[in-house]
């Protein structure tokens, strides 16, 4: 698309073909900042590109910010968890605002993040950092004592999460002290949280000038397996409360612009608990689901709210109206093989023949033996559904858990 020189110049931190394609088809100038292995590809396809190795943190780190500044780049957008603090560092220079870097560090550390939220008057569950297995056992015991469990009662589980990984990566559920032994040493330190029984959901909120420009609620059918947008009417009922929560979050984290992706619980007593928040596009292809139902490209939306030259009017014109403009419900399910030994991919006929079934991105199995699933978030690929009715879609997604896609 023809680029508008009066609008912002954007750097995308990290390699995402979908993001690049969105940028190609958008009126902002852009440049991809990615590791050197992307160079040949970018040259071949005329993709503007600056090489950078995000794993290397040293005293040359300012270099990338200065390079981008010299190029005239206005803002950097993190595409992955690992580039969030890089974007913070770059943007604090580009936008001359040191506060932005500090904010990005908060977003990268789940324990710090929770404390900050707590300080901002947001409810969070019980949480603590663990440095070794003993910490985990102690926490498990204490949480269950607090819940007045006697010896021999089944424990309430606790959740373990890596401090700095995206979404479900490294997320484990621990119920008994025995299970603690299964955690590899190298995963420590971790964040531990008490288990909240309730309805878990995520939010994608595009923020411009400190205000919510568009807020989507993504309903999890089963955490780590399935999600759909927009949320069912039952969950959308909470929208006013959720908007209030997000506004609190914007205030607590002092967020002026960008895309945030927090997770919450609603417990049975209608109380909202903050889980965590990320400052980057969500996993599980929620962007694609949003495009399916609302028709706007969520990467372009992100570029729009990040760009300091974007006007209020442009933002207003870009986003559709939540819920009312949605054309049905779109969801996806992350397939994980249920058998220990698999030889081929076989989409069940009932799935393929369902009118809601759209497409899948599963591949034939590369190995026959399935590694034991130790943590969430290691699905083998997604299948996409879309349809008119939220409940049909929700039940359909739930039902997928009982099916074998790999046999």
């Amino acid at each position, binding site marked *: 698309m023809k680029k508008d020189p009066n609008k912002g110049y954007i750097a995308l931190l990290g390699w995402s073909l979908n993001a690049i*394609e969105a940028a190609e088809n958008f009126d902002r100038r852009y440049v991809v900042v990615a590791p050197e292995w992307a160079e040949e590809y970018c040259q071949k*396809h005329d*993709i503007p590109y600056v090489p950078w190795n995000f794993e290397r943190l040293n005293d040359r780190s300012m270099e990338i910010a200065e390079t981008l500044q010299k190029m005239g780049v206005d803002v950097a957008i993190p595409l992955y968890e690992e580039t969030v603090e890089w974007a913070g560092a770059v943007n604090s220079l580009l936008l001359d605002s040191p506060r932005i870097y500090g904010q990005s560090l908060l977003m990268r550390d789940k324990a710090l993040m929770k404390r900050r939220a707590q300080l901002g008057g947001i409810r969070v569950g019980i949480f603590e950092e663990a440095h070794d297995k003993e910490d985990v056992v102690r926490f498990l015991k204490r949480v269950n004592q607090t819940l007045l469990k006697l010896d021999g009662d089944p424990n309430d589980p606790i959740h373990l999460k890596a401090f700095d990984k995206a979404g479900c990566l490294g997320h484990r559920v621990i119920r008994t002290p025995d299970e603690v032994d299964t955690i590899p040493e190298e995963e420590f330190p971790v964040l531990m949280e008490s288990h909240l029984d309730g309805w878990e959901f995520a939010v994608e909120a595009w923020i411009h000038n400190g205000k919510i420009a568009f807020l989507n609620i993504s309903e999890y059918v089963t955490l780590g397996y399935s999600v759909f947008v927009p949320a069912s009417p039952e969950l959308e009922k909470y929208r006013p409360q959720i908007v209030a929560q997000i506004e609190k979050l914007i205030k607590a984290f002092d967020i002026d612009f960008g895309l945030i992706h927090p997770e919450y619980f609603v417990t049975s007593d209608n109380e909202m608990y903050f889980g965590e928040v990320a400052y980057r596009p969500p996993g599980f292809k929620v962007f694609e689901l949003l495009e399916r139902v609302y028709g706007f490209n969520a990467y372009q939306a992100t570029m729009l709210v990040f760009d300091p030259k974007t006007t209020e009017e442009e933002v207003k014109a870009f986003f559709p109206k939540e819920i009312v403009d949605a054309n049905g419900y779109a969801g996806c399910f992350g397939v994980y093989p249920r058998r220990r030994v698999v030889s081929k991919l*076989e989409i069940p006929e009932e799935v393929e023949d369902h*009118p809601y079934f759209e*497409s*899948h*991105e599963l591949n034939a199995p590369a190995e026959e033996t399935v590694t034991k699933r130790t943590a969430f978030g290691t699905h083998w690929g997604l299948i996409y559904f879309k349809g008119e009715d939220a409940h049909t879609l929700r039940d359909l997604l739930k039902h997928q858990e009982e099916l074998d896609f790999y046999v």
Partner: protein
Amino acid sequence: MTTYGPTQDANETPAGNDKLVGLLAKLDEATTLLTNSREFAKPAKLPRVFDTARRVLLQEGGAAAIEARAQALEEAGVFVGSDWETPQYLVPSLTTHSLKSTDTNTVVIEVLSELRLLAVAKGDYLHPLISSEQAHHYLTQVLALNLSLLFGTPSEAERESQGRLAQIPRHLFHHLADRIGYEHIIDRLIDEIWRILQQRPILVEPVKQMITQIAICQANPEIDLGVSGQGADRLVSSLFGPTQACREDPGVEVYRERLVSMDSSALQSEATGFARAMHDTGLVSPYHTVLLRHLLDHSDHLLSEALGLSSTGRDCLLCYHELVHALIRAGVHPTTPQAVYGLTLTLERGILYQPPVAPAMWRQLGLSLSEWSKARLNLAFGDSVSPRARLVEGVLCVLGLPLGVGQGNNPTCQSARALSMWAYNDPDYLLQMVAWAARDDDIIMHFEGMPLSSMASLSGVATELPMDLDPVSLIVVPHLDRIYAEMVRRCIGREGDPHRWVNPEFHGWWSGRGFRINVDVATGQLDELDAFLRHFYASYHPYYNGNQPLIHPQPAGIAVTDSAARFIGWHAITILRVSLDPDDVMRVYFFNPNNDSGQDWGDGIQVSTARHGERFGESSLPFEEFASRLYIFHYDPLERGELAEITQQELDRVIGHIHRSWGANRIPPTNLQASMGPEGA
């Protein structure tokens, strides 16, 4: 933009149509996404196009819909970066592999490419790289090469490996044949049918389907076969109207009425006509069964004429008059016509003279089948006749055509070989097996003194119950397969190849207890090749074994190779006889339980099934060529003679064949042939 001929659309159900319309909307959407995406982003958009196209192709009318969209799909970029991008270089013979691939995308892209070329051939799509004539020629070849996909239903094995995917190439070929025209493929098809019939398989359903297709084409005034299809007359008439009185295929009821008013000379002429057709093709018309049942009330002379019996068969018929009549009443029905051919050849073999066989046949006639056996037979063949009649037909066919047994598309060559061997060598034992399996759902065999029950044994080689089999195999093979697998399990831990012990115990006392293998089981390398071959010559080659013809059929193992001489797998066969062919070439005649034995094993080795002195169902190869694919044989240890003094040249020729094919990667380092050079290791 495209006009359609009489395609699948005609028999579409409204519901199916709705589904197709919905899917096409999704396909168009996915195609648009692909069209509009930048070149670098196309790979990410392709899977959705392929997957949606796959689902469209599963629907009736899907192929036509894709043909209409062929140009749009190609322009969107579905072929970019693949071999299909340059259709002028595509090789028709590769389609036989790609269409049977287990990889969904390979099948779909191949089918999309064919439909694109169809649009080109029909002049609806002007392609920059390939002309309409070229496309037409290419598609004709593809059709002829994949006839089984056009007429056959998916085999169990295809279903196993491809699942629902197996339907897609079939939908494609029906559509292609409708649009390209059957006349271009019919002659090729006729040759193929004769080649298969020369092997006299028991299961003739696939062949009948092909012949029926030809008959339909011939009868359809809209299909212009031109000069092709001339050779089909005998095939079509043998099924649908072999004699004067049923020439116009009047239906069995009308024919039965006509018989009533015939005098004996008319009946005689009918009988001769049927017998000639049956012996020409190995196929039996349903009208033939009507005549046979009618003749039960006439003289045995006419019956003998109707079966086309020689003096041997006629003697047998007269001697066992009552049994034969009972067999016809029980097993010969319009829906079990092949029973006639089976009965004929059973009589010709004279096996009824073996004392236990006739009483065993009486047992067979009165056998009460287990519920499981009845259910299996009904499932596989339908319930137009009773399961018992179906089994009688099967027994007659197996006894009459022991070499017509096929394994279907199942990994059960061992069991098929055993069944065939018993029918050939020990029919009484076979009948016993059938009785146990069909009546008791259990077969007990002994392995080194230990009884093995098929019911108690857990699993066989085949993971699913095979269905594409003749009635006897259908009932007996699952039992044999489990027992065979159990015997192999009992050999776990023994050094060497388990067939050494299993083959003699499984097949019968006449399998030699002596055993030779030329592959080292632990390393997979060739082992003592010279001694192995000399020993094989000494045991089997009449010039080296004192001119002793082979007495009993012997199990043997061969390394099957493909037409490029690449190793495919180990396979069980039976060595039947070794003798000079009409051209004075020493040949090994063997039984291959594989359904179609006329295979090209590469490196110039083409297995022959006719015209080299083969009897029906036999395969043959010159002795040297056979020896070069052999890896296991049995011999009688008491008759072990000197290793054959064959010339080094002959030995080198055989070893050359081995090293150029399945042995290429199995040459042990110490046994390097000078001529092979260092790359031989």
